[in-house]
């Protein structure tokens, strides 16, 4: 192995080495999430590739030893959103409805039966429908889907998710709560269609929102 020609080579190699050690191990996690964002393998590969190359370009600015995974997910999420915006402008690709702003969907969402819990049936759904879970998830609007993926597939904390998608923690909580219920209600529909559940499943419509952490903490403080 020859010595690097000059300092520049040395620095570049250092950067490559750090990137391989810190960023590259998260590639599988990025890919698993990208699959559920883009809904197909080819696009998922393109997305991961674009995000990783972008991450390498900006890797000099990344502070070593901090939360590399969250940093990579932020890059990938932004890349995904930007690409879809571009696609929408060009009108070349069929537009994914779920990228519409939240406000436009709010009315329609209210009509969805919000279901609290599956009781003992919850794990059954996953056993019965591997692919259906993926399909149901892909039907969950993007803003909710990304939060569910970041929390439940990748195990990010609320604070990290808030940083990744650039929204307040309260928004993360309500989207996560709602995203999970949308997914659960979709799976309940599948189960009914397939006859695994009777049509008269109890739906608990009372709790549509999680209590915000701040509200909860204020209440504790005041009484």
């Amino acid at each position, binding site marked *: 192995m020859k010595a690097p020609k000059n300092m520049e080579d040395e620095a570049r190699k250092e950067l490559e080495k750090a990137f391989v050690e810190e960023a590259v191990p998260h590639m599988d996690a*990025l890919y698993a999430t990208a699959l559920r964002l883009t809904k197909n393998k080819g696009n998922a590969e393109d997305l991961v590739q674009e995000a990783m190359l972008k991450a390498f370009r900006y890797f000099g600015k990344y502070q070593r030893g901090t939360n590399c995974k969250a940093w990579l997910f932020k890059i990938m999420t932004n890349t995904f959103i930007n690409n879809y915006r571009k696609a929408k402008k060009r009108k070349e690709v069929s537009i994914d409805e779920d990228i519409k702003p939240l406000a436009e969907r709010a009315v329609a969402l209210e009509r969805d039966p919000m279901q609290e819990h599956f009781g003992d049936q919850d*794990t059954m759904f996953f056993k019965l429908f591997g692919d259906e879970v993926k399909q149901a998830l892909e039907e969950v609007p993007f803003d909710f889907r990304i939060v569910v993926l970041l929390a439940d597939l990748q195990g990010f904390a609320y604070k990290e998710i808030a940083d990744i998608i650039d929204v307040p923690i309260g928004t993360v909580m309500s989207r996560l709560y709602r995203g*999970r219920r949308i997914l659960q209600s979709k799976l309940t529909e599948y189960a009914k269609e397939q006859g695994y559940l009777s049509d008269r499943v109890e739906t608990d419509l009372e709790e549509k929102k999680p209590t915000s952490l701040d509200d909860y903490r204020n209440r504790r403080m005041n009484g």
Partner: protein
Amino acid sequence: MKCKDFLPLIDTYVDGEFDELESDELEMHLSACPECRKKVDSQINWKRSFKQCLEGETAPVDLRASILGQILTPQTEQQDEDENVLPLREKVATKKGAIAGLSIAAIALLSFYAVPKFVTVAPAASDTEPVVEQAIDWHTGNFPIEVTGPESDRIENWFVDKVAFPIHLPAFKDANLLGARLANLKERRAAYVAYDIDGTRLSVMLFNGDGLLVDTENIKNIKGRDIALINQNGYTVALLQNGGVTYSLTSDISEEKMTELLSSSFSAPE
């Protein structure tokens, strides 16, 4: 705390977002309320099942190779070395640094990364190695032949304006050259050539193997040439590099038979 106060906090509780004091308060309610306990358990199960259902999707090997290939500096000095074949094992062994082991030189057809996680396509993961998988697909697919044998000159000439690399067909002992066609391995354009050896079909594919990753465990040195031998779904697939072109050989013969075939048909690199 009452159930109506607890219920909206279930997600946040299960997500582990409460501090210790807060959790204590919630758990006090839980220990007294089997109804809420059940809902918490259910939510925990949901979260776990969701994860199990979606995890385990690993980035495809060629995606990994493509990304690393674009990021990492090529090892230019390797271009000075023998272009016919890369003595892969030796190279990996002599390189100590993580990055030092990268060989993504344009001519390095079987590229190896010295960082173990990339070098090794674990046996389970080798199922997803698309080149091997697709080589088997082509072998078993029985696709129509576009140019017929048995004259190898005729087939080599047919490919001249169809693929961007030279086609030199190996001469197998007692083999009947059936014919050839254009094919592809993932996005790689490939020449597919079919042989018959004593009634057994042998498929040979020639392609540009830039960035192709192979498990070091599969590498065998046969007559001074490093060859990857992979057994998958009952087929033996050999990958090797010759004259700057990557060859895959697929057949349902044993590894020993394949080795024998290889050593008699590919001369040792100079």
